[in-house]
């Protein structure tokens, strides 16, 4: 589904990603772990097409398409979803209105008719249950005045509504207490099918107790320095990132 080959990316002339190789197949969950500043969030942003980053080398293919040729909205319409680490506030625009706009643009892109109000609300109701989100929250201005937990839950709700094939969760666990973490993870797990894939970007092993990955990759200094199964996450938790750093040097 997703193939990243020798990906180099920089911001303001400073190279952050220094040759990433990664392959993700449908139905898989990959965790990307790493210390602060290792390039985790950069990787997530580059996949979603954030313009601040310049890809200097390498390739990303997704469903046999050259992702780097696609604008952010085109990637989204092809099913790439990024759950933001810091969801952005949009005053005066409700989540409902926001999602209706998004869904109908995606549908238009796919040559489908716009979703009528009844079907849309029905869909909302179903997905609201999935992430245990309150109707009132969805009528408020998007992310404005939301608590940390509400923001993250709203991200997963959007993911549920948009039904992406590749979801990238960027530090979705940051700022969440245990209860919120469980609700958010539950939502992600319920959305998992054999046809979609998830990339979980996280600093801590904690999230991976809830969202169990098939593969764990350790990112350090812009490269994936270690890959393994979920046990790797536990080992990391135990030994700390210094272990990887030392191994890398050695």
């Amino acid at each position: 589904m997703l193939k990243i080959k020798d990906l180099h990316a920089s911001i303001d002339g400073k190279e952050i990603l220094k040759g990433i190789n990664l392959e993700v197949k449908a139905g898989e969950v990959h965790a990307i772990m790493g210390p602060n500043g290792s390039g985790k969030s950069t990787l997530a942003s580059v996949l979603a097409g954030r313009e601040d980053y310049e890809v200097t080398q390498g390739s990303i293919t997704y469903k046999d398409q050259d992702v780097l040729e696609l604008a952010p909205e085109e990637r989204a319409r092809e099913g790439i979803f990024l759950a933001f680490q810091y969801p952005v506030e949009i005053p005066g625009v409700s989540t409902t209105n926001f999602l209706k706009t998004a869904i109908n643009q995606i549908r238009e892109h796919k040559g489908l008719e716009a979703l009528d109000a009844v079907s849309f609300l029905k869909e909302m109701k179903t997905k609201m249950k999935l992430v245990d989100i309150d109707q009132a929250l969805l009528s408020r201005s998007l992310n404005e005045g939301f608590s940390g937990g509400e923001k993250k839950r709203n991200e997963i709700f959007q993911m549920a509504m948009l039904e992406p094939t590749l979801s990238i969760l960027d530090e979705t666990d940051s700022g969440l207490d245990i209860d919120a973490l469980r609700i958010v993870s539950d939502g992600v797990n319920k959305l998992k099918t054999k046809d979609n894939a998830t990339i979980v970007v996280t600093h801590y092993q904690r999230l991976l107790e809830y969202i169990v990955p098939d593969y764990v990759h350790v990112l350090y200094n812009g490269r994936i320095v270690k890959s393994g199964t979920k046990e790797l996450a536990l080992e990391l938790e135990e030994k700390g990132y210094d272990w990887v750093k030392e191994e890398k040097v050695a």
Partner: protein
Amino acid sequence: MSKDNQILEEFTSKEYEHGWNIDMEADQAPKGLSEEIVRFISAKKEEPEWLLEWRLKAYEKWTQMEEPNWANVEFPKINYQDIIYYSAPKQKAKPKSLDEVDPEMLETFKKLGISLEEQKRLTGVAVDAVFDSVSVATTFKDKLGELGIIFCSFSEAVKNHPELVKKYIGSVVPVNDNYFAALNSAVFSDGSFCYIPKGVRCPMELSTYFRINAANTGQFERTLIVAEEGSYVSYLEGCTAPQRDENQLHAAVVEIYAKADAEVKYSTVQNWYPGDENGKGGIYNFVTKRGICAGDRSKISWTQVETGSAITWKYPSCILKGDDSVGEFYSVAVTNKMQQADTGTKMIHIGKNTRSRVVSKGVSAGKSQNSYRGQVKIMKRAENARNFSQCDSLLMGNLCGAHTFPYIDIENSTAQVEHEATTSKIGEDQIFYCTQRGIDEESATALIINGYCKEVLNQLPMEFAVEAQKLLALTLEGSVG
């Protein structure tokens, strides 16, 4: 003979001395402004003597005034002697169907979501019998007539209701109020008159009717709205469809007179031609709009969506004279390319317990300049007056400017005046958040802008709010990045 008349007489004979003669049969006046021209206009419109004198008085005041220059706008000096002040409405050849209309214009209508029938009307296509706008208008007029509501052109009002016009014209905006108001008073072409009798609630937005009849009111428009005790009216001026006009200078006057317990809601959507990329050929829109809450517990609410004109210079204001009266001003002013807007409001608190609320949302894009200028004045008598002002500016790009000039003047210590102002930029973060969800940049911008202006757009009549939203998007098309 009064002193005024004496002066007038002198002026008149002077003009004649120069052998200046106007052909009264002509469809338009010669260029320039003089007492003779004022007389010509008045005669052409078959006006009564008192109105002619009123115009002449205004003209005389105007000659003694200087064009103001305090606004934060720049434009080449206007040569007032190079303007034609009267021109009879022309009958243009009407296109037979929409196929004959400029496709670019039709595309714009489509984007604004204007119905086919209305498109025909706006482009002057002859309409079929079922949708005959004249018959629709007549139906409205009958219904309003039953309630005693008068709603007609200013000229008709002068003919049919001279006592009302005479009583209220200039009562809110005196002829010598300001340079452009004086000019308008001297040469106003036509406009609208609206009278709501005591205790009557106007059952429809006067928008629908107005939009059918708005064409060709000319560059010096005059509107007078009188709301008797306990009456209510919602009035809508303008149109989202782009309006072009060969006259560059527009100096309109709007007066609202609200008696006790009356409420007047006045909404404007202004989309005059803003000129080309360099601002060439755009309309100068210098307007005086003022309402007086003369009676206790009366309320006047201004809502405006300003997207057009090369230069917009206007401050819809409220004089809160009656005790417990309320003034409101909700504004969205969008400027793009080389547009300049200096707009805001004045809230003059005279009565006790008077309240005013100001919500101004400015959006600047391109190389435009957008200024909010607002005055809140609390007079000595105005016990417990309250004002809340919120002025937000949104910038798109690095070449535009947003400015806020609040003037607060308080003479009564019981007053509560709050002023909040924010300036923000449409963030790349916001745009990226939207595009990541599959929304393209143009739609994302529209979504963000409409969200930002929501509080004001909510004040508009429903169908108009929808059109206004699309208009905002259209105005800012291509200004991202």
